[in-house]
């Protein structure tokens, strides 16, 4: 046990990594599914232990291969990174237990074991992205997670060949993003001679006003903005989410962009936080603020006019990412805390929505589009109930998590920018009701279609869904845990700025 506690930061990365290698060579799909679940459960268990450790120690530093930083690679788990670790662990656990029926019907038979392997590899990559404190190691994990995610998206080609195009777009844009990031890291390494994040944050201010640093900052931020799908750079996202196999949509929607946003915060606060005054990066926040407002409205409007259900949810993700970035761009404690609150809550909401929508499509044996699941709500009361709860949570109804995040976001926006920003947030929330109602109307009132299906809801599909719905309500009523951890994270991040 002592051995486990000592090695927790690496265990959450290598557990899915090693299991993914074992799963890849297993011939039996059922066994691969079982091992995938085992790996996700172990990762969740280690994450919980890690959470307990962090609450006592504040910061855990782990030196890979006994090489001390800044030379060796350092892994850091602190009050900031524990939030995305928990999001990944919980969502991957629920989505893996949910995945089996979908992968059997949506992926070519001989590729199912490999799909599970890629699935675990994505989780390992995301975990690594969150824990690593080395700027170049971060790039390696960026590649691991996005390349395996691309392959996962392309696995949807059995249902619709467009998945290949979607995967290809994701690959090209993701590669451009990663290249931009690594160019930035290269420039930083050239001027400072170090790759360790905390070491970088000490060495950059010593350089004084340096043009390479400005270019490096721009490249790194732009690269990560592609990965995080921030408004004008979100083009890859709707198709990738829409044509991926259903469980993959859930995993990517709930974790991949969240982790990219976390990295954005890490780069701008941990690496460059100390040099804010020298370069007056502070003023750059207005660019992010502007982009996030654009994202809020563009995403919502695109969702309103979208016919394909999965794409609609993806467009809504673009809008929600706008809210999260808005919080970060305020650069106040309340603002960053509110963005972390929404980071967690949006993962819960979107995972629930995607899960319920794909659960409905499972029984029609068709890819979800405008009409294939209309009117199905009446025949699937449990799934539809979960869908309604998550949809209301997205709109921000009291007693759900969506309300908590909107409340804190509006409060933070009002405190730093005055009345106009809360007004815009409320306006876009009100607009989001339009597409939510469109979904509900189609699913419930369109009784003529799909009324001949005899549907018996499967417990292995609705139990994970109900768990996530329960979390949506539970953290809407007792939000103390989320709010406290988000405020701790915001405080830890802002400590970097001097």
């Amino acid at each position, binding site marked *: 046990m002592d*051995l486990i506690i000592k090695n927790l930061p690496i265990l959450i990365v*290598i557990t899915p990594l*090693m299991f993914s*290698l074992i799963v890849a*060579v297993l011939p039996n799909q059922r066994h691969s599914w079982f091992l995938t679940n085992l790996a996700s459960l172990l990762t969740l268990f280690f994450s919980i232990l890690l959470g307990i450790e962090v609450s006592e120690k504040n910061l855990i530093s782990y030196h*890979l291969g006994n090489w001390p930083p800044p030379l060796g690679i350092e892994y850091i788990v602190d009050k900031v990174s524990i939030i995305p670790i928990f999001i990944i662990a919980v969502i991957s656990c629920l989505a893996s237990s949910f995945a089996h029926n979908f992968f059997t019907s949506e992926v070519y038979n001989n590729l199912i074991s490999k799909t599970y392997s890629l699935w675990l590899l994505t989780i390992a990559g995301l975990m690594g992205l969150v824990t690593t404190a080395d700027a170049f190691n971060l790039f390696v994990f960026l590649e691991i997670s996005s390349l395996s995610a691309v392959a996962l998206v392309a696995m949807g080609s059995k249902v619709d060949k467009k998945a290949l195009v979607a995967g290809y777009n994701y690959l090209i844009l993701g590669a451009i993003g990663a290249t931009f990031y690594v160019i930035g890291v290269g420039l930083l390494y050239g001027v400072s001679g170090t790759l360790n994040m905390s070491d970088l944050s000490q060495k950059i201010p010593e350089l004084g006003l340096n043009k390479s640093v400005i270019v490096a900052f721009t490249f790194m931020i732009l690269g990560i903005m592609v990965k995080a799908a921030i408004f004008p750079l979100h083009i890859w996202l709707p198709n990738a989410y829409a044509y991926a196999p259903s469980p993959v949509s859930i995993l990517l929607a709930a974790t991949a962009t969240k982790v990219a946003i976390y990295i954005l915060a890490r780069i701008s606060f941990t690496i460059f936080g100390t040099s804010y005054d020298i370069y007056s990066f502070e003023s750059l926040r207005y660019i992010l603020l502007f982009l996030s407002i654009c994202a809020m409205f563009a995403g919502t409007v695109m969702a309103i006019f979208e016919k394909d259900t999965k794409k609609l949810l993806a467009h809504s993700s673009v809008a929600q990412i706008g809210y999260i970035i808005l919080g970060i761009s305020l650069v106040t404690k309340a603002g960053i805390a509110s963005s972390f609150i929404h980071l967690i809550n949006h993962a819960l909401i979107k995972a629930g929505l995607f899960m319920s929508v794909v659960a409905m499509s499972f029984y029609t044996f068709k890819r979800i589009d405008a009409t294939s699941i209309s009117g199905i709500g009446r025949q699937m009361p449990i799934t539809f109930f979960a869908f309604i709860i998550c949809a209301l949570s997205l709109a921000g109804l009291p007693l759900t998590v969506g309300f908590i995040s909107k409340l804190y976001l509006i409060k933070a926006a009002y405190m730093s920018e005055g009345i106009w920003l809360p007004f815009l947030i409320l306006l876009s929330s009100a607009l989001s009701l339009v597409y939510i109602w469109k979904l509900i109307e189609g699913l419930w009132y369109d009784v003529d279609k799909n009324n001949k299906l005899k549907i018996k809801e499967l417990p292995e599909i609705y139990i994970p869904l109900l768990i996530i719905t329960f979390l949506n309500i539970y953290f809407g009523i007792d939000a103390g845990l989320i709010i406290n951890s988000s405020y701790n994270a915001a405080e830890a991040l802002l400590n970097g700025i001097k």
Partner: protein
Amino acid sequence: MNNLILKVCTKVLFTPIILFGLYVQFHGDFGPGGGFQAGVIVAAAFILYAMVFGVDKCKIIMPTKLNFFLLVLGAFLYGFVGIVGLILGEPYLSYDLLGSTKQSGQHIGILLVEFGVGLTVCNVMICLFYSFANFKFGSNKND
């Protein structure tokens, strides 16, 4: 390709290429070389064989399933050596306790890890070659 000269030359070259690959592999500890280069060199031997004798003949000496298994095994070896260090009470990927002294431990660790890298790189190259060689336009068959 039914050229006798090519076939004979390939047969003569096949083993020395692999031997050279192994030299680069194990020389990697002391000088230029290592798993990545060695893997590509060894894979070149198989690819040459496939180009001269045909992909089907090459699949007899390196079946697709064995290829995939070795690919995974290499990566697994890398991770597993790291875990051995972890079980012995050191951080992940620390090789100090693998041998009797610190130096020999590092030596054994690097040797095994590089061998894993070589195995994976070699089989990834062959796997890529197979998938492009088997590619047919307009076919929906998945291999």
